[in-house]
């Protein structure tokens, strides 16, 4: 089994009205329930707005803390799921459904270590 990060990117600023967002959130809950039932969900959640991000950088002398996301852009990481499935095709099957539900661009990446560092420690 391999763990994959499924990252959802969303445009900044635009929060859809409740009548649009509501059905999406319902489908997302069902999606997570199915992931759990398939014993494939490691962890998943949405993030707060990208504007609420804080970036820390060591400039050689001290750590500088700045406001805002690491990369300037019109889209930012909005939330993610970590799943544990046999291969990329299985990860893509789940991700495809997520793309259909959210209408957002989705990035799928395998974790470098099959078991995960924390779990093994």
């Amino acid at each position, binding site marked *: 089994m*391999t763990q*994959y990060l499924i990252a959802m990117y969303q445009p900044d600023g635009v929060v859809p009205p409740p009548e649009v967002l509501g059905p999406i959130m319902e489908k997302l809950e069902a999606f997570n329930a199915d992931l759990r039932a398939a014993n494939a969900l490691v962890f998943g959640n949405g993030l707060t707005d990208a504007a609420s991000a804080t970036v820390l950088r060591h400039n050689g002398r001290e750590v500088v803390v700045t406001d805002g996301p690491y990369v300037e852009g019109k889209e930012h990481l909005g939330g993610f799921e970590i799943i544990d499935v*046999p*291969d*990329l*095709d299985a990860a*893509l099957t789940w991700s495809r459904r997520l793309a259909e539900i959210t209408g957002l661009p989705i990035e*799928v*990446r*395998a974790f*470098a270590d099959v078991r995960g560092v924390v779990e093994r420690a």
Partner: protein
Amino acid sequence: MNPADAVAAVFREEYGRAVSVVLRTTQDLGLAEEAVQEAFTAAAERWPSEGVPERAGAWIITTARRRAVDRFRRETARGGKEAEAALLRQYDDDGDPDVFGDDRLKLLFVCCHPALSLQARIALALKVLGGLTTAQIASAFLVSETTMAQRLSRAKAKIRDSRIPYRVPSGSELPERLAAVLSVVYLIYNEGYSADLGTQADRAGLCREAIRLCRTISHLLPDEPEGEGLLALMLLSESRLQARSGPHGALIPLAEQDRSLWDDALISEGLSLVGRCLRRGRLGPYQLQAAIQAVHSTAPSASATDWQRVVRLYDALAQLAPGPVVELNRAVALAEVTGPEAALAVVDRLKLGDYHVFHAVRADLLRRLGRADQAAHEYADAARLAPSPGERAFLQARMRDLGAS
């Protein structure tokens, strides 16, 4: 055959098969390739003194598996005891020839996975299935060997790290994935057919390789008529190889080709495939394109071509796979049925200004309508955009003919 030639011949025939069989157990494309390359190195060292083994392919696979096991032992972190055990367990099952074909098909689906870039898919398919060297592929795609080596190693790393599965997709996934595989095969063919490649031999090699890959697909997935359709399309196109270029490599268009130079064996194989796949009643774009080529292949001359039928087939193709290039080709046939004026009206609506064939078609229609100045202008644009020297030479000759008349 001397032993060095024997190694080269076996390499050509067995490389892809050996990689796919070893990959089945190593699950690591880079490792499988290294092991098979080591086996061929061993063959080059030993066959001259020991003689070429009777079952050379099996010898290579057995040797490659041993090398892979050695590597697992050396690099225990990579796969561990479990993988080593799997390799050893499957040591003796390579007597069954049927599993080989299936393995190669799986490998082709790995190489053509939609998660890989199109360029990487083509390069990987040529490398691991065609047994082409990185230098050969680099020259075919006009990039440096270093660039191609990087592209290939990135693709292999992605297959390993993201765990692209080693299998033929099933059920609902298959049509989409097969379409990707077939389009890679057709791109390889077209690359060989038209691109400005290093040498004539490289081009012919790519075409042959594409046809060989497609034969494998249609043999292994006999229930998928599009595989047969693509094979027929390429065979019919290939049948005109001797007739489609002049003494200095200038392109000779279909209408002006000496049909006695067409390869009858390829035509009859292509025609029987077209008939067989169309009878299945599951039409697809490759089958329709093959059917169009079949009409040309059976016409005694360009003027005696059943152009009505060609137009009807393009109509069907436009339904299944709509797009401006299909419209352009349909217009060429339409010109033969309803005249150049009606065809020009269709062509003028298409937004294909960067495509040399668009300008070539437009030039030809304008020439037939007696609008020589405009035609010359279009031939110039077409020649400027044409990717191959043969096409450029043909278009420039057409332009000169206009000036002379």
